[in-house]
């Protein structure tokens, strides 16, 4: 038992920290710190900076241009970038599709798509969920019918995050309707500019646009865009879900949010005292901080097991549930601490840099919207209900 990182790991941490000091534009980190949305160009800018250093794809093998970090290194990188308020790496190409292509893609697919992901030539989005298939992915209905050297795709995807920026989408489609629900699914790569595709943004309850509906109307997709074998898409999707969950606890985000919360709580006054000295509010902060301290170690225990090659099973579901509960609790406290100043909704403060003096304290404009927006954390990516079922099924084996 030893809670300390090795000297090599601490050196790596110093290297990451030095890099961030030097290369992370303050213009970007300030927006992230204040919870403001980034433009597409800003996200691409940060990707390019990382790619230039060879650190855009920490989890990819070196042969594909990745940094080939182990789980502990990835964790350190995550910790440092989040506490420095670096933009989040957009996960669809890098964390999700990349590993699938590396494991199951054809040589041609690897050679074509992987460099384009790193270089920012393609912006990928994910076509999994459908209006009738949220948590129950196996019931998806989007059809792909083989005709000669292409598929004809018809149907609808939804909750497609940042799909408004994407030129490519990876989709689960039904290629066989006769067999068991999971067995007839295939994994297709589709160019968003193909005729017949329509993207409709969905405005979320906080006023933001980050998810979309994507409609497919007789969309022609070349057969070489099939990943792996036809009707084996479910296997690849499950593989991908595991990869999606590497940073599922969100400890870095929670830490950064907690630091920000405590800063605000030192400034916001109540009855002539800062809120952080109000015993009830201090108790709320302390409880979630204690939970987060434990969660950080729970996370490290899973990471450490993963670094030794143990595949996380129900553990990643545990991290997902507790990690999202903690993040949502911090979001809740951040809106609370703003008091009456959580009420104003100045949407310009959210999306692009707002040059006007903010109404109320810094971060007040984003506090309530972020609280509402992050209700998604326990819904998307496998709802917490699905995760709890996974956890108990693994243990009860009934």
């Amino acid at each position, binding site marked *: 038992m030893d809670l300390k990182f090795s000297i090599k790991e601490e050196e790596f941490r110093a290297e990451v920290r030095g890099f961030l000091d030097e290369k992370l534009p303050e213009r970007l980190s300030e927006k992230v710190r204040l919870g403001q949305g980034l433009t597409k160009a800003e996200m691409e800018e940060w990707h390019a900076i990382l790619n230039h250093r060879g650190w855009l794809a920490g989890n990819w093998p070196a042969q594909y241009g990745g940094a080939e970090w182990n789980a502990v290194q990835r964790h350190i990188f995550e910790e440092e970038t989040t506490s420095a308020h670096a933009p989040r790496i957009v996960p669809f190409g890098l964390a999700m599709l990349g590993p699938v292509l590396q494991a199951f893609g054809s040589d041609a697919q690897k050679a074509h798509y992987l460099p384009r992901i790193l270089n920012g030539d393609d912006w990928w989005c994910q076509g999994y969920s459908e209006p009738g298939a949220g948590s129950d992915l196996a019931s998806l209905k989007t059809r792909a019918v083989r005709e000669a050297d292409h598929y004809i795709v018809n149907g609808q995807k939804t909750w497609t995050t940042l799909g408004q920026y994407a030129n490519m989408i990876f989709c689960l489609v039904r290629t066989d309707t006769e067999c068991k629900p999971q067995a007839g699914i295939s994994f297709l790569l589709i160019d968003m500019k193909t005729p017949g595709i329509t993207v409709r943004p*969905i*405005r*979320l309850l906080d006023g933001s646009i980050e998810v979309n509906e994507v409609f497919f109307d007789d969309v022609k997709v070349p057969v070489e865009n099939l990943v792996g074998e036809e009707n084996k898409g479910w296997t690849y999707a499950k593989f991908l879900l595991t990869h999606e969950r590497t940073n599922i606890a969100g400890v870095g985000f929670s830490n950064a949010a907690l630091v920000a919360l405590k800063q605000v709580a030192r400034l916001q006054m109540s009855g002539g005292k800062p809120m952080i000295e109000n015993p*009830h509010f201090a108790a709320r902060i302390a409880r979630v901080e204690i939970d987060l301290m434990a969660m950080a170690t729970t996370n490290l225990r899973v990471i450490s097991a993963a670094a030794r090659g143990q595949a996380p099973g129900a553990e990643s579901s545990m991290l997902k549930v507790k990690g999202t509960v903690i993040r949502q609790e911090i979001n809740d406290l951040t*809106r609370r601490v703003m*008091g009456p100043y959580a009420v*104003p909704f*100045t949407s310009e403060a959210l999306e692009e840099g707002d040059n006007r003096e903010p*109404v109320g304290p810094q971060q007040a404009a984003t506090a*309530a919207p972020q609280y509402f927006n992050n209700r998604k954390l326990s819904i998307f990516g496998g709802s917490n209900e699905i995760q709890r079922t996974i956890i108990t099924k693994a243990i009860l084996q009934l």
Partner: protein
Amino acid sequence: MDFNLTEERQMLQDSLRRFLGDKYNTENRNGFIASERGFSPDVWHELAELGMIGALFDAADGGFGGAGFDLAVLFEELGRAGAVDPLLETGVLAGGLLAALGNGVQKTLLGEVIAGSVQLALAHGEPAARYDLNFVETSAQESGDGWVLNGHKAVVLNGGAANKLIVSARSSGAVGGDDGISLFLVDAKSAGIERRSYGTLTGGHSADIRFNDCKLPADALLGQAGGALPALETAHARAILAICAEALGAMETAKDLTIEYLKTRQQFGRPIGKFQVLQHRMADVLIEIEQARSAVINAAGHLEDGDRDLHISAAKNLIGRVGRQVAEEAIQLHGGIGMTQEYDLAHFAKRIVLIDHLFGDTDHHLERFIALGAA
């Protein structure tokens, strides 16, 4: 002991429910919120014609209601419909203070309020006040036979649309003291007033308002100089009852939408309402909404007796806790669709949560409840 509505209030409830049911749906509401004032002037005028503003005042002030259960019935319906009309701001807060403190001349304005031809706002909260009613830094200095106001009022509800403001300012005493707070009736366009207006997540336009050597005549003073706190406390008690009832109505709708969704949404081959986990969480929501209803009844029933503040704080604390649970569970049980602005739930969930930020949140009122119990 009688938990039934009087016939009059039953009629008020029925007609308001019918009217709002016609006027409000997701699209209309989002349109009203995005419009110039953050609500619909047409709906406002029709509400006035229906007598809904009058229902907030007693007969002596030209109304036909004004008791705790009138507020409770009316605001529950506003909440149920997700209405965004500023009855709270114009009618209960500023209107209530005008009725309580105004002299004969000043109270002539009440007729216009009840007729719906004027919009009011109470400019009381300040950037460092949080939820403390006696924290007033804005100053009122006597000057000749008038007053000069200086200060900054924060998040003045309906401050965007208001024609007239009731402004609190300290004419004596130290910041945080109970004595020395005065109220003034001020035209919103007076010289020396700078308004920054903005929308909110749930409709209406609030404003931060700065007073820079704003000169007022002597007759702007409402009631006795320095003695406004008790009236402010009463107005806020009434406002808290109103928003608790509004939250209750909003919770009822959130619950109804969720039950409907549980019955119709299919996952894994059956309606999701068949899943026991969702059933039991819904059961807890149902239980807590009944508790919220009881808290509103207690607050309304004690609005005019010596236990007022205890029951008001109890209700606001309970509604804050239950509201969060109901809003979050409603979204969670809906899944993704519950997160979207084009689905009706979004507005209700936001409103329920934001009510916790008005006039003292759940922690503030827990502290107050403790202090009242110890006193």
